């Protein structure tokens, strides 16, 4: 894999994806072998939005590779509060760290930031745009549980604003996947994502009801429908309720259906699903560590090669 920065799932080829996933599998099999791999390496953490899983799993990944992190902290406690531009912030922090991880509420922020730095920059979520490292761990989880051959996957919930959905849908065009998109009409895939899927020759099959397609699915990827996307509480409740699943819903599914969720969930997957064999979302979250270790390892090695050249 030869990328300077990881900005979008669109830049990842099938070979890139396989390289990260294979490496992640090696790391997961023997994490101790990588414990000193990047001693003295510092990862700069720039989180302009709250994050639990992404931030903690990047931190764990860097530490498990023998390195450490330097953290900007919250926006309230940083110079961003004084009106500093993002371009300035990343140019300052690249002097403190060997690679940067950026989460920012605006679309295109990582792309822009990457134009100002020489160290590798990883997009950890840009507004409603992309979240490529979530996609890599999603793909890892899918490959482990359902495989990439003749895969039928349903992606459900907020497809309009869900960045994990945008990244995943594009990445799945690299594998033998039939994608079904299940959402209320108001939260269907945005035009730019549809455009890319069409460009890749992928068929966009849309449903407003899960029942229409549930029995055919190998994987059901559930995302949260956010309250703030609706003008009032009653409309939100009416819509969101249709996209919640529980163990009774899943009786119509294949026995080996894999249920995934990028988390955090609110009430879209009932707790009684946790005890079924379908529930894979905690495993999915745990996979964030070996996958991010693999990605960081490949990116940092690549950066060293580029510097040596």
């Amino acid at each position, binding site marked *: 894999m030869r990328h300077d920065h990881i900005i979008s799932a669109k830049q990842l080829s099938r070979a890139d994806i396989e390289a990260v996933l294979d490496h992640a599998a090696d790391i997961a099999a023997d994490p101790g072998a990588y414990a000193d791999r990047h001693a003295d390496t510092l990862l700069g953490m720039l989180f302009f939005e709250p994050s639990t899983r992404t931030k903690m799993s990047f931190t764990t990944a860097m530490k498990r590779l023998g390195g450490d992190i330097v953290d900007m902290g919250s926006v309230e406690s940083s110079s961003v509060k004084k009106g500093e531009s*993002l371009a300035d912030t990343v140019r300052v922090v690249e002097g403190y760290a060997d690679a940067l991880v950026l989460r920012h*509420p*605006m*679309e295109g*922020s990582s*792309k822009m930031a990457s134009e100002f730095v020489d160290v590798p920059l990883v997009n950890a979520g840009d507004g409603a*745009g992309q979240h490529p490292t979530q996609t890599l761990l999603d793909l890892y989880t899918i490959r482990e549980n359902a495989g990439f051959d003749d895969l039928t996957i349903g992606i459900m919930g907020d497809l309009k604003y869900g960045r994990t959905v945008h990244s995943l849908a594009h990445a799945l065009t690299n594998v033998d996947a039939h994608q079904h998109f299940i959402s209320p009409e108001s939260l269907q895939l945005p035009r*730019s994502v549809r455009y890319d899927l069409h460009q890749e020759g992928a068929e966009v099959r849309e449903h407003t009801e899960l029942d229409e397609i549930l029995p055919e699915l190998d994987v059901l990827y559930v995302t949260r429908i956010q309250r703030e996307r609706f003008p009032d509480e009653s409309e939100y409740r009416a819509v969101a309720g249709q996209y919640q699943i529980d163990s009774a819903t899943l009786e119509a599914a294949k026995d080996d259906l894999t249920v995934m969720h990028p988390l955090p969930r609110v009430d879209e997957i009932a707790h009684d699903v946790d005890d079924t064999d379908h529930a894979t979302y905690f495993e999915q979250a745990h996979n964030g560590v070996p996958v991010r270790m693999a990605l960081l390892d490949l990116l940092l090695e690549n950066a060293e090669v580029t510097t040596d050249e």
Partner: protein
Amino acid sequence: MSDDEQLRVSKIRNGTVIDHITGGQALNVLAILGIDGSSGEELSVAMNVPSDRLGKKDIVKVEGRELSQDEVDVLSLIAPAASINIVRDFSVIEKHRVSRPSMVEGVLECPNHNCISTEDEPVESRFAVVDDGVRCEYCETIIRDDLPAHILAE
């Protein structure tokens, strides 16, 4: 030549004549080129004059400035039939068409208010020209219709 025609097509000594602009788009052409008359340049604008090819067309003449191909190619987005005449000493010394650029920078404003390019950052807006519109290089929003409405205010 009638007085009326004389007025419309009065010659310039040195500069650029942009002809065959889609009727009604002359002011948008000027906006894209960043020409608003404030720096004193001599301008002639004719709008909605009869044209065999276009039905109605606009013409813009800029005295004292030779526009480069890069500068005019962006006009193809709103005036695909435009022709460019470079004039020196009252004679047309170069004539060319606009061609579709692959990228336009600093011309359009992204309609997505949550796009980083709309913030106070040291970057110009940048759009890739795609099959049926343009696409923000930062947030990937696609603009298909009404490009003139998205021209950046100077």
